[in-house]
């Protein structure tokens, strides 16, 4: 049982970040905080991918002159890292769009609180 927790601490951490992010998205009234929650949510998935790429005693996925490329166990799995570069970019773009929308909302309604906005729209 203890082993179940300590052996998978990376996944537990990812899961807790996921929950923090979801909490922010669902329960926070301020729209900026929702965006922060979303960002944390996305980061947790990035973290998950990076963690599954790890290996014991392996080095980063940049070619080292001293270690031959065929010696696969000395290099981390590069594929998840490349995927996550894309995902991080997607996340940044999403944040950009989100903030643009927030600016537009603020200009039109003067508030960024979800409750007030719902009342103003009705």
């Amino acid at each position, binding site marked *: 049982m203890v082993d179940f927790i300590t052996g998978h601490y990376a996944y537990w951490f990812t899961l807790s970040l996921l929950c923090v992010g979801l909490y922010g998205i669902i329960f926070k009234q301020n729209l900026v905080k929702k965006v922060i929650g*979303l960002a944390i949510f*996305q980061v947790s998935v990035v973290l998950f991918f990076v963690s599954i790429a790890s290996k014991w005693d392996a080095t980063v996925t940049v070619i080292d002159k001293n270690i031959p490329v065929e010696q696969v166990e000395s290099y981390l799995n590069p594929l998840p890292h490349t995927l996550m570069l894309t*995902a991080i970019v997607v996340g940044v773009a999403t944040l950009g769009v989100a903030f643009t*929308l927030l600016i537009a909302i603020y200009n039109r309604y003067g508030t960024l609180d979800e409750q007030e906005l719902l009342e103003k729209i009705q």
Partner: protein
Amino acid sequence: MIETHLPAIIALTFVLFALLIPLFGLWKEQLCQPLAVLGSGLATAFSLLAFINYLQSGSIRYLFGGWEPPIGIEFVYDGLSGFILLVINSVAFLALIYAKKPGQMEFQGKELAYYALAMLMMLGFNGMVLTGDLFNLYVFLEISSLSSYALISIGNKPAPFAAFRYLIIGTAGGTLYLLGVGFLYTNTGTLNIIDMSAMLPMLVDNSSVVTALILMVVGIGVKAAVFPMHGWLPDSYTYASTPSSTLIAPIGTKVAAYILFRIMLYLFGIELTDAVFPLSYIVGVFACIGIIYGSVMAIAQTEMKRMLAYSSVSQIGYIIMGLSLANPFGFAGALLHVLNHAVMKACLFMIAGNLRYKEGHSNISLFNESYRIKYPWTMASFSVAAISMVGLPPLAGFFSKWYLVLGTIDNSNWIFLAVIIVSSLLNAVYFFRILEKVYMKNPDAEQQPDKAAEIKYDDVSPSMMSPMAIMAVGLIVIGFANAAIVSFLLGIFPM
């Protein structure tokens, strides 16, 4: 020669025009919309070419850069993706033709941004349909989603807020999908759909694979507006501008439904999907709840666009229910409904747009008998689309329901059958209500002094009328020609 490259060409057309439109638009603003029409028209032509090629020579697996899978990314053009591609590109073409005048009225000065984003969004959708790689799908999913958030926000006052809520829920869904992909990658070591589908049967008991399946279904289900994750749809479709609604409503949720088809029927296959617990049945149940919920909510609406939005939730339920049946008739019925609903909804949103353009509103309680004289063609198209939505033969809508009914009977699923029947009646209520208002004098209104002289023909201009009329006629044609379409669909059933 060109045929083998067509999958890439279709997507690249949109990239090209997404770059050309800002370029030319900065020089001359009026060029934006014609360029968008040209781009989507070319893409439609290429889709048609590719489809004809498919009927003659079979599927194409297009390897980008010549890299073999599982290392390289590929586009897979098979029967299912070819069909969906043709549907979404043709509807987009007509929607962009339509967008000219409403666009000038509703977002004057922002046309450049609008049409460039529309091209990017179509790129995203086309990529989602064509790709054979799971992560590539996520990338195109986000491309289309971000463009659609922006397109929706170009509208009236509450539009950015609706777009923001859509952004939050949609990105959460996409991220859940990505997590599911991560689980699958951990277990199989590949991201290629065809490759993975060969490996998954060996992993049927693995709990992380099952979790991945659920994550992916929920994540894509958000984009497909499957109940209970449909919450973003009514506000987004209502507050978006008319051209946006016409473009996004018929296409967006269909592409997500297509992804669900791929995941549940092709990637996992139906035995695997149901191996641990009856996921397809659960999805079907939610779809049925969505059907009834959407229909009931639609009846309660007074604003036409909102009514159409809830109606979309209901209609997507039909498609997902057909998917969940996992038999040939259900499959054919669901895909035929993808085609039918795309055409019907595009036509209906165009009609709502026409009314907004002419009257300034699309509030049903203010519809009156003068519409019959002022907008005869618009209301005639509405009658055709409404009759098709209710499902009366020989229009297109009847046949997708007929095949769904046959599918539910094949599975002895009497509750789903009852849901289809009840919801068709509910559809009749909210559509015929509008027909009553428009074609008949309100019997409770006081006798107005005869204002017949003021009311005369005032229907919309050709650029707005022809796409709508083409779609209405299309419904009749699809109805009569559906035997050919359905034979094709039955033939590509993956089992």
